[in-house]
């Protein structure tokens, strides 16, 4: 049984001795619901970036002569790009950067681009070189975040999308942030303990893919 958002937040409420245990809806004056959800969303994103446990394959259909195009909105880390001019035969498009492509002489491979450059500016975009003449399908493998950031309005019954064995470590990361907060809630000793446990979870997350 996978952990739900409400289950995780109730566990946090118990550990922080909140007066009300209700799946993270009600918080005392030490933290607000928006703060806790902010910690949750940031830790989830960091977990995905560090461990890359949640990936998917997607195909982008791009029109003729398009050199730069948007990547999916749920993309966190781009892992692989392959291009196909006929939708069947794909060839890997290697990652490069502006310096290398400035100095290189690049040619199309059966109308497929040779290299791609992930644009650093939002919205996340990808640039391919040389520019293909015809329409192109790009098959991408990427680390993704399956849902929009959780808010206080999110359903408490929503199942967290990371493997359930890592939800305790997500809890540790959120608690570390909560105890780092300046003010009455500040507890640096417990914050350090939970930060260490969070790092333990990151290492285990990486280990599962080896």
């Amino acid at each position, binding site marked *: 049984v996978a952990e739900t958002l409400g289950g995780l937040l109730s566990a946090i409420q118990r550990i922080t001795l909140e007066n009300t245990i209700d799946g993270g809806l009600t918080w005392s004056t030490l933290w607000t619901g928006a703060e806790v959800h902010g910690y949750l969303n940031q830790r989830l994103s960091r977990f995905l970036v560090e461990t890359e446990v949640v990936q998917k394959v997607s195909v982008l259909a791009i029109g003729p002569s398009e050199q730069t195009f948007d990547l999916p909105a749920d993309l966190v880390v781009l892992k692989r790009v392959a291009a196909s001019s006929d939708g069947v035969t794909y060839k890997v498009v290697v990652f490069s950067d502006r310096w290398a492509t400035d100095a290189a002489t690049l040619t199309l491979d059966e109308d497929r681009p040779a290299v791609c450059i992930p644009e650093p500016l939002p919205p996340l975009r990808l640039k391919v070189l040389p520019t293909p003449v015809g329409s192109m399908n790009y098959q991408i493998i990427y680390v993704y975040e399956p849902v929009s950031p959780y808010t206080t309005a999110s359903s408490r019954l929503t199942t967290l999308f990371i493997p359930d*064995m890592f939800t305790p470590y997500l809890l540790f990361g959120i608690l570390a942030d909560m105890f780092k907060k300046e003010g009455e809630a500040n507890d640096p000793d417990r914050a350090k303990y939970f930060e260490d446990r969070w790092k333990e979870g990151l290492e285990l997350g990486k280990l599962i893919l080896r």
Partner: protein
Amino acid sequence: MRVWQALTGEWVITTSTIVCTGAHFYDVPSTEYAPYRVSHSFDGAPLTLTSIEELDLGFPGWDSTSTGTPLYWAPVGATGIAVHPAPLGGTISLESFQDTPVLVNAGDFIQVGDEELQKLLTYAHHYLTFKEGIAEIEATGGALTDLIEAAARRNAALRATNFYRSVGRGKLSIAPTDTLGIRGG
């Protein structure tokens, strides 16, 4: 128990099958993660584990038109796999980690040995001290060390990690101790 599952991969599932459609990429069923053994119904023999990068280097264009009985598989995160060549029929079987069983009723069983059950119970006590303060957490820190040591006996890969080595050398901020807490446990 979820921490134990993350440390050891104790609970696995071997029954799922994926119907092959001629594709190279398949999703792992939603309650399973990180397959470690993949076979095809053609002969049931395990496919050779490789990686996407190695497939790209060793078999350029592998994810295009090559079809046949699959010989290799590569993980796509913990939630997907790629196979090569692409099977046009049959089914793929996975052995994966599964969601951790959750105890609900008083009569539910924990499927672990007695020697490990005590470690889990002691760690549960350690977990309960999270709400109290660092003194209680430190006093029961030995439970965490014991749990990780017990897990390392089950999981050779765990022994190679930095964090396990830091535990073994006593470098964790939590001092190993056999006490059950300053309140007497």
